[in-house]
């Protein structure tokens, strides 16, 4: 019997929403780590009972939690994220130099093959890796060592490395995305990196087509076609057909091309989902209507998905890590909001039902499909 586990990180703790494959009735467990911010919680593709959570607090710093039994019990593992060396300062918001300071782990990306290997994207932006189940973490210094890092500047959420994509066909290739630096790609397992931002244009930069400095909010790939990437940028929805060598805009007929998350349908590499937000200052949906937009053409042409979602007086946001898909048939799509709702669609977005309505603000949503 198949099932689904939805892992929800919120401003005040973590929750696990579990259902069988029908995705009709849900069991809610949590809060785990009550009172702490859970920026991300995700399971290992190699062992679904292995789950990692990034637990942090402005008061008490960073903790990494690990579960070996599907989230029933947890143990804190290593929380030392020590930068290697002392590269030149990055830029502060006003362009002045600012030293690197570790603040928190934004995103955990477990290896597809080894439950003990996990990548961690952190603020201030860098990439760390553990190969011992989270006990020790080591920086991949080639990323920050890239000659451009002294020009990286924080976005509104901080200078964060928030997305890590592992190429399923090439174990040496990875992509990361940093706000506000852009996309970087490695083809040698993380030793060296190069910017992958050609085609992006950002009006807040002195040179709108600069090599780095773009506030990329999220990138995603489909495992069956890893050379095609989709991006939700600060403004603009973008697509690359050559593994990040170049990008072109596919915002098309969206009501706004500002937003945070972007995901791809589990079985249709050209079916893409975004959640348009009014603007960079008005972080709520246009017209007070929460609409997930779906393109079945790989971008350009979009349809509003509204059935079951609030269509009046709705002023929540959906953050970059708060939308995910399962791999059942039909594909399930899940969205968590800053208003504490988690909506699920078990028909690829055609209709939506709230699983919960009153959680703390949702920071992240991940889905494990259990078979």
């Amino acid at each position, binding site marked *: 019997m198949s099932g689904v586990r939805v892992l929800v990180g919120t401003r005040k703790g973590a929750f696990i929403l579990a259902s069988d494959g029908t995705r009709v009735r849900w069991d809610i467990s949590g809060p785990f*780590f*009550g*009172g*702490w911010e859970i920026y991300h919680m995700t399971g290992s593709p190699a062992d679904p009972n292995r789950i990692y959570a990034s637990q942090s*607090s*402005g*008061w*008490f*710093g*960073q*903790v990494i939690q690990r579960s070996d039994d599907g989230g029933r019990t947890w143990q*804190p593992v290593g*929380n*030392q994220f*020590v930068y290697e060396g002392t590269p030149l300062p990055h830029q502060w918001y006003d362009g002045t130099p600012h030293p690197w300071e570790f603040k928190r782990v934004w995103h955990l990306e477990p290896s597809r093959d080894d439950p003990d290997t996990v990548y961690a994207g952190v603020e201030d932006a860098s990439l760390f890796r553990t190969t011992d189940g989270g006990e020790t973490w080591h920086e991949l210094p080639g990323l920050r060592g890239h000659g451009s890092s002294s020009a990286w500047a924080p976005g509104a959420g901080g200078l964060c490395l928030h997305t890590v994509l592992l190429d399923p066909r090439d174990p040496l290739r990875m992509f990361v995305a940093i706000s506000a630096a852009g996309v970087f790609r490695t083809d040698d397992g993380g030793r060296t990196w190069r910017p992958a931002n050609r085609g992006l244009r950002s009006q807040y930069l002195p040179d709108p087509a600069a090599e780095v400095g773009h506030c990329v909010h999220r990138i995603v790939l489909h495992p069956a076609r890893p050379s095609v990437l989709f991006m939700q940028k600060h403004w603009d929805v973008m697509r690359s057909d050559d593994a990040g060598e170049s990008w072109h805009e596919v915002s098309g007929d969206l009501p706004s091309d500002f937003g945070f998350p972007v995901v791809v349908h589990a079985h249709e590499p050209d079916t893409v989902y975004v959640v348009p937000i009014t603007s960079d200052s008005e972080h709520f949906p246009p017209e007070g209507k929460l609409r997930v937009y779906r393109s079945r053409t790989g971008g350009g042409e979009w349809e509003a998905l509204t059935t079951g979602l609030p269509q009046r007086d709705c002023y929540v946001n959906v953050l970059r890590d708060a939308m995910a898909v399962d791999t059942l048939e039909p594909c399930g799509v899940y969205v968590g909001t800053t208003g504490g709702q988690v909506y699920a669609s078990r028909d690829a977005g055609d209709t939506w039902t709230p699983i919960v309505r009153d959680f703390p603000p949702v920071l992240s949503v991940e889905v494990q499909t259990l078979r």
Partner: protein
Amino acid sequence: MIRVVLPAHLRSLARVDGEVRLEVRGPATQRAVLDALEDLYPVLRGTLRDPLTGRRRALVRFYAVRQDLSHEPPDAPLPEEVATGAEPLLIVGAIAGG
């Protein structure tokens, strides 16, 4: 024996109820107490002070016998009442909303 009161978030993280009681070798200082605390509860490493520099985290405060000891040097002796266990060292998360 030295008594330490942790904030609720750290009590749950360390899975302790009530006060923590510690034996400290040598003079009772902030550093010695935090060293003993982290030895007993390794999960607290990094939550009160930077693990590399030893600097107190900005939103962590140390109080005892109605005094704010947060800005005392880490190797300064703690008050006699704390050193003898008559009064606890209070570790407090600063009031900062949220």
